[in-house]
């Protein structure tokens, strides 16, 4: 459907979905950017930073679509909206570990790898579905994003495989990370209160269908690693799609918007 013939209800549903997609990639890439200089070795550092930049680029495309729909300036949407208005999954807002970037960051690489692998695999499932979206501008962006996802997915799958096939210490850390990631995975495939509007307008596949595709997509790797299939919880502690978030998000937003808020009229 093109912008000119859209009903107000349809436009609302598109905007709601776009906020979920944009906020997911935005927070995920912000957390990724906090690894700069801290990854296990220099090539891993560059590769992860590149992936974070790519992902920030994907968020920017979604925010631009929102800008085109009259939701406000893309940069403002990314920086100014308070936590209660954010629609990202709580998985993407979680800190990387204890400590802060500028002082004693004790970040957890096993968590970074697991969150990234599960998240990117989920993103791939969503993007494949979005390529068929009834909202044409979104389908066109999905085709572009898909191009860069091949590398992102392979990158994290490879790390995941390597660490799971490594020492007992590595396996222990990975299993702890998997438990943490899964505890927050409940809202990844949720559309929150917008479920009916988003699904009935054919913007993207249903929550259940995508969840099933995600499970099928990681099953071969889990089998080859002789691992149990990860179980996505049915009961949600918080649903980020409804604006329910952890304090990690508020702290993260304060940090990431600090410079932009300092002089929002500056031309960068």
């Amino acid at each position, binding site marked *: 459907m093109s912008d000119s013939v859209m009903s107000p209800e349809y436009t609302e549903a598109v905007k709601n979905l776009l906020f979920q997609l944009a906020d997911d990639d935005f927070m995920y890439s912000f957390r990724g950017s906090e690894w700069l200089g801290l990854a296990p070795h220099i090539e891993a550092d560059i590769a992860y930073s590149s992936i974070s*930049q*790519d992902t920030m*680029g994907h968020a*920017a495309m979604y925010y631009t679509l929102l800008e085109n729909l009259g939701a406000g300036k893309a940069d403002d949407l990314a920086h100014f909206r308070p936590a209660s208005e954010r629609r990202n999954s709580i998985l993407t807002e979680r800190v990387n570990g204890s400590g802060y970037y500028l002082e004693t960051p004790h970040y957890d690489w096993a968590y970074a790898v697991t969150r990234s692998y599960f998240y990117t695999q989920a993103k791939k499932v969503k993007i494949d579905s979005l390529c068929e979206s009834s909202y044409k501008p979104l389908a066109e962006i999905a085709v*572009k*994003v898909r*191009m*860069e996802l*091949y*590398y992102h997915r*392979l990158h994290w799958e490879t790390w995941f495989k390597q660490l799971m096939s490594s020492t007992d210490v590595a396996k222990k850390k990975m299993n702890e990370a998997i438990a943490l990631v899964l505890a927050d995975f409940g809202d990844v495939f949720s559309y929150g209160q917008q479920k009916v509007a988003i699904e009935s307008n054919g913007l993207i596949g249903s929550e259940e269908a995508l969840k099933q595709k995600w499970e099928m997509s990681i099953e071969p790797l889990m089998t080859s690693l002789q691992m149990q299939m990860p179980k996505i919880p049915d009961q949600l502690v918080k649903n980020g799609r409804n604006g329910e978030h952890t304090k990690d998000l508020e702290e993260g937003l304060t940090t990431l918007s600090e410079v932009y808020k300092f002089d929002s009229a500056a031309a960068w």
Partner: protein
Amino acid sequence: MNNEKTFYHEYEIFSKRTPSSAFQHQFSLLAPNEEMALIMAQENFMRREPVADIWIVNRKHIKRMNAEEKMTLGRLENKEYRTTKGYGYLKKKWRQYEQEMLDEKEILSWGGERK
């Protein structure tokens, strides 16, 4: 495929013209082992050119990309920030600041007050 049992192996040959130049892939040849590959490479292909060094690599030791892996090479054209041309506007901006009047208002603003 049972390459281990064949007498000949495929070798990829790399060489450089001077000690400080980069290695370049030149060609491949068949040989029973690395030593034989080296003497073949040198006399068959490099007798008319100066050579500073030669590398011999058994082809089976090269990790190649399959069709699926080649999919990972795609990239979006939205990364001007990774190239120098993405910062071309800086020159103009710099010139603009250089040409701005150094007036009293400007100098006072250095004290921390907003202009």
